[in-house]
């Protein structure tokens, strides 16, 4: 067995072991529960949620914003690392691209879950008004789904061809890989087209991703609502997306490294570098948080003051401080130290970052709705507050599980570490596979 064959064997997708199967079944069950809850919501109407006329958007929208955010850096990191030719990027770009792809698809699904009349979805395309930020959102999400699929797919082509050969003894699987590899033979012409295409999509995804995050922020800042009506919101969302994206990437990387034994490829140095990126992202995000929360505290009109008081010391204070300290302060302090950037510590910090980021979106969406310009009157007492209902939790968990399921399925059938590229970098590529 040549070194190359060994590498292919090591990096080729393997069937799940017991834990992997359990994990997948678990996800499928959660997704199914979500689907059942959603069907119930369709039948009974959104009365099954705890959203009402004042808190008119709830966990669906905050979850949507979370998906959009996490989809950002997955591909942006990939694009930047590709364009800057950082050679250490090789083992982690595909993981980032998979996360981005799964997240943006679920973002698209989640926004439909929030609609009162999903049966009229087509109206968005047939009667779309370009004045509405929702129309922009629909367009940019559709676009981003295509682009993240393409940035995932182009670099995959040579690997799929390798897998086609590797699974020769399993003709059905081999046929599928052959089909998806688009007759990849590694000809000079194919390499040239592929290289050019990757360059194109990597350049294009940067502005599209920035537009996506900005539009997502504008869904809120184009309204008059206290806490949303802020010119700061676009860059604030981009910085936040950077944080959660890197956090998500590190978390998934660590899990894969642990369960597949990829220590050779996903090294301590990779974690260290990503840890540095994360702390940088957190610092930038901290800056925007300060300008988002501290500045209004100085010139706060009455309504803004009430909103901030609610966050700082009121009903949402525990959550707010958990999110601020756990999602910003703690990561910044811990990741300043080299030991803090060791894989295990970094993993737990990243999990903390992802969880707090999810709740952060919740804090952006919900409390602002509880501070309308006119007092809340004439509605039942329970409409004065909001916490997601069982249906909302089931459906939201379903979407999160579905995103993880997409990642899991891709991990199961796609080499998570680019095989061809790694072989090339190691100099063990058989001559017939060379792109030169």
């Amino acid at each position, binding site marked *: 067995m040549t070194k190359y064959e060994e590498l292919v064997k090591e990096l080729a997708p393997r069937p799940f072991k017991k834990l992997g199967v359990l994990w997948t079944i678990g996800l499928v069950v959660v997704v199914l529960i979500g689907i059942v809850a959603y069907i119930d919501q369709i039948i009974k109407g959104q009365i099954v949620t705890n959203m009402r006329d004042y808190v008119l958007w709830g966990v669906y929208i905050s979850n949507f914003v979370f998906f959009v955010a996490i989809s950002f850096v997955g591909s942006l990191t990939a694009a930047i690392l590709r364009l800057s030719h950082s050679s250490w990027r090789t083992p982690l770009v595909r993981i980032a691209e998979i996360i981005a792809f799964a997240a943006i698809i679920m973002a698209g699904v989640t926004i439909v879950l929030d609609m009162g009349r999903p049966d009229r979805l087509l109206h968005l395309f047939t*009667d*779309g*008004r*370009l*004045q509405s930020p929702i129309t*922009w959102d629909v*367009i940019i999400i559709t*676009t981003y789904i*295509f*682009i993240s699929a*393409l940035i995932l*797919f*182009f670099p995959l*082509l040579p690997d799929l061809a390798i897998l086609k050969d590797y699974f020769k003894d399993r003709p059905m699987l081999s046929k599928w890989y052959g089909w998806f590899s*688009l*007759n*990849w033979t590694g*000809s000079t*012409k*194919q390499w040239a*087209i*592929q290289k*050019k*295409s990757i360059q*194109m*999509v990597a350049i*294009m995804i940067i502005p*599209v991703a920035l*537009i996506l995050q900005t539009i997502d922020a504008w869904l809120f800042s184009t309204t008059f609502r206290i806490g949303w009506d802020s010119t700061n919101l676009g860059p604030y969302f981009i910085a936040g997306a950077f944080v959660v994206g890197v956090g998500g990437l590190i978390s998934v990387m660590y899990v894969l490294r642990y369960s597949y034994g990829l220590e050779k490829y996903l090294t301590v140095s990779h974690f260290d570098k990503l840890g540095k990126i994360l702390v940088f992202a957190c610092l930038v995000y901290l800056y925007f948080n300060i300008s988002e929360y501290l500045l209004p505290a100085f010139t706060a009109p009455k309504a803004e003051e009430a909103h901030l008081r609610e966050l700082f010391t009121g009903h949402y204070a525990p959550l707010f401080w958990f999110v601020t300290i756990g999602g910003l302060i703690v990561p910044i302090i811990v990741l300043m130290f080299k030991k803090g950037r060791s894989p295990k510590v970094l993993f737990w910090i990243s999990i903390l970052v992802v969880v707090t980021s999810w709740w952060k979106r919740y804090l952006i969406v919900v409390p602002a709705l509880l501070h309308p310009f006119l007092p809340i009157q004439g509605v039942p007492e329970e409409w004065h507050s909001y916490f997601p209902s069982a249906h909302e939790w089931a459906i939201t968990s379903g979407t999160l599980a579905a995103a993880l399921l997409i990642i899991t399925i891709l991990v199961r059938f796609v080499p998570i570490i680019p095989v061809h590229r790694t072989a090339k970098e190691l100099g063990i590529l058989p001559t017939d596979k060379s792109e030169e």
Partner: protein
Amino acid sequence: MKAIQKLNTAIFLAFAFSLFGFQVVAQDYKARISVDYYQEMGSDAILKITTKFKGDNGYEPCTNTTLNIYKQISADSIAFMGKTETNMDGKAEYVLKLNNTPSDTVAIFKYFVRIENSDMFKDAEKDIDFMLSSISAEPTVEDSVLHIQAKLVDELGEPIKGEKLVVSVKRLFGSLVIGESSYSTDRKGKIMVPVVDSLPGTDGILTIQVKMDSKKYGIVKYSFDANIGKEIVDESTYEQRTMWSPPNKTPWFLLIFPNLLILGIWFVIALLISNLFKIYKS
């Protein structure tokens, strides 16, 4: 005369029934009737009738109640003129045709409105008397100020003095009074009402109404169109390209800028997909 016979039969029948105790429903409620003589110049004079009764929940309108109208034709006799029925608001109208023979004295008309033999109400009556009059009006300019001049005369064309006239402009849901709440006619039966503010009207046309509500003459109204108003200027942004317009009137910058972006991005996506085909083919 056939009809009279019929009615006589009816009266007989009613008499007979009451004798035999056939009166089924108790005539409990006491209805109150109010009548106004109402004349809009140029159209038929009418009696405007409003009815109500004190029911269990305070005053209520007498709905769908037949009202009989009688006219006094001599000192001691009245004639049945017709009937009308109240609507859901307890209101009814009755059109009069007063073909008065020319004479040199002003006639006094007297009418009676009655509820008779009703299932619900005791018999009730209300009478009204009125004299005929007419109002004319026109816009004039005096001392370079626009005025509405109105004149009130009686049946013989003699000016009526000391009656109050109200001048107003007809509006969508009511009428807007011009100047004082009312003006008394002078010796010549005239009033002069200055129009200080220029009011807006469609194409500058205002429908001016002059109205008298008098005990002696009833309600008499004269209205005419006059081109004395400001022209209405439509301020609607409906035809413009605004942020709140429908899709076919999107502002240009929002049509051009996003569409350029979309076209640009999707052109590249199309190119990339065609590249996939190229790879597949080669």
